[in-house]
């Protein structure tokens, strides 16, 4: 099964490379589309949903004929496998928990993922590591063109692409970047980012947290307004207004920490390393908090005991579903924490400082 191969390595977006990757983890653009003459997903009866699944799957297959895309039918899939797809950011939590005929198609490197029958008939995303918004927009725009040749989208002369929820109508575009902001968090200045985002009417969410939980130092910033401005405009606002400011704030905060509180900073980073090297039981939240500090330490060249690749791998492999998948069986919360600690200890002791 494809999923078993998946769980052994992170997708492209978690590679930790690309421009501004000290602050920007990944860039993503998502488009929402619906098919004309069909009801939206929540109003489609089981037969109609099956029909939509078939139609979309066939169109995706023909549009991607030269690429080796996988298609996963979600309805017969085990809950753990669906959770794996959520942790890899290939599907939304809502899609995992949904019902009826639904699926996801994705490219081998996982940069492209197309959800079928989520809230809209089609939700397509392109995601890559670092700040690469133009690239992801162009990629998903091209795929949208290919599908448009095969499908008739619901499009309104005034409102544009029609979506099940009117908050997505128009371009149906959602641009988002995942940011690592430990400097602003440690200096208690994270409010500056929230304020800047609010001014530009952007939403800020937690990255790996459950549902609406904004835990740790990872944040996802995305646009809310999808109507009345072109896709390029929305992408450009991110590139020219939002990100330079946030990246600058974060870098300043990091430099201030080195300048004013270097000892405390190093202590924090190395204590996190000590925790991960020695803990016998650890939650995924605590893991995330320590990995965040190690990532910061590596980028500031204050931590050499572990490399970025190991950190990125640990980010993903310590998530509940990946952990259980890797060990080959289901675990209780308590067992997971013990297994997680053991896995991390092993990984870190494999790579002693030179």
């Amino acid at each position, binding site marked *: 099964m494809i999923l078993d191969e998946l769980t052994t390595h992170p997708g492209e977006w978690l590679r930790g490379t690309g421009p501004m990757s000290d602050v920007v983890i990944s860039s993503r653009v998502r488009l929402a589309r619906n098919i004309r003459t069909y009801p939206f997903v929540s109003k489609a009866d089981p037969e109609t949903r099956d029909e939509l699944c078939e139609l979309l799957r066939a169109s995706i297959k023909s549009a991607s004929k030269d690429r080796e895309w996988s298609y996963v039918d979600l309805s017969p899939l085990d809950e753990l496998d669906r959770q794996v797809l959520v942790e890899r950011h290939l599907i939304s939590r809502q899609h995992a928990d949904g019902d009826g005929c639904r699926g996801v198609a994705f490219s081998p490197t996982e940069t492209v993922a197309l959800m079928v029958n989520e809230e809209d008939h089609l939700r397509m995303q392109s995601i890559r590591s670092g700040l690469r918004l133009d690239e992801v927009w162009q990629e998903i725009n091209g795929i949208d063109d290919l599908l*448009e040749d095969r499908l008739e*989208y619901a499009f*309104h002369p005034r409102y544009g692409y029609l979506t099940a929820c*009117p908050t997505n109508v128009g*371009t149906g575009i959602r641009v988002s970047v995942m940011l690592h902001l430990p400097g602003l968090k440690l200096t208690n200045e994270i409010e500056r980012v929230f304020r800047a985002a609010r001014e530009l009417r952007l939403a800020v969410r937690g990255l790996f947290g459950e549902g609406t939980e904004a835990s740790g130092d990872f944040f996802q910033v995305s646009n809310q307004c999808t109507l009345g401005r072109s896709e390029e405009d929305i992408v450009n606002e991110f590139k020219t207004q939002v990100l330079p400011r946030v990246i600058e704030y974060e870098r300043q905060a990091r430099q201030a920490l080195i300048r004013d509180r270097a000892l405390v900073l190093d202590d924090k980073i190395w204590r996190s390393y000590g925790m991960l090297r020695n803990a016998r039981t650890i939650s995924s939240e605590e893991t995330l908090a320590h990995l965040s500090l190690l990532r910061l330490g590596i980028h500031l060249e204050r931590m050499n005991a572990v490399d970025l690749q190991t950190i990125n791998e640990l980010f993903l492999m310590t998530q509940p579903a990946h952990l259980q998948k890797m060990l080959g069986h289901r675990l209780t919360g308590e067992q997971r924490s013990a297994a997680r600690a053991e896995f991390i200890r092993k990984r870190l002791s494999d790579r002693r400082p030179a």
Partner: protein
Amino acid sequence: MNCQRCKKAIATVHLTDITKHEKREKHLCERCAQEEGVTIKPQHVHYNELFTHFVMAQPSAHELAQLTCPECQTSFVEFRNTGLLGCPNDYDVFERALLPLIERAHEGQSRHVGKSPRRLGHKRDFQDDLIRLRRHLARAIEDEDYEAAARLRDEINAIETK
């Protein structure tokens, strides 16, 4: 659970803040979370709020509540409760009620700018052309203007075989 900040509204935002030794949990209502700068937006809840404060305050609110889409049977009340429309047709059926909502959600905008499906555009144009040409053809035949009728027939054929 009630909001820890205002102690009044129900807490819908749950945050976990991990510092060195402790894990602090915060439970806030939507408004307080926004005021604290954590703009977490459960879209559809946010939407319902718009309804109660805005749309339902309109004098015609009662009429609007009676509306139902003939194609998918979604009623406006249903949309108000779920935040989801039933089919593309609903944008026209509920237009009067939706328009202010759409403008609220999109910084006052209500007209699409940006990409549009190329194929759909062509098809629509052709469809319109065909309808017009067929009407002219019918009139030409009625008027026994066979020269015009022949020309129109050629035009129609040209579009149909495209």
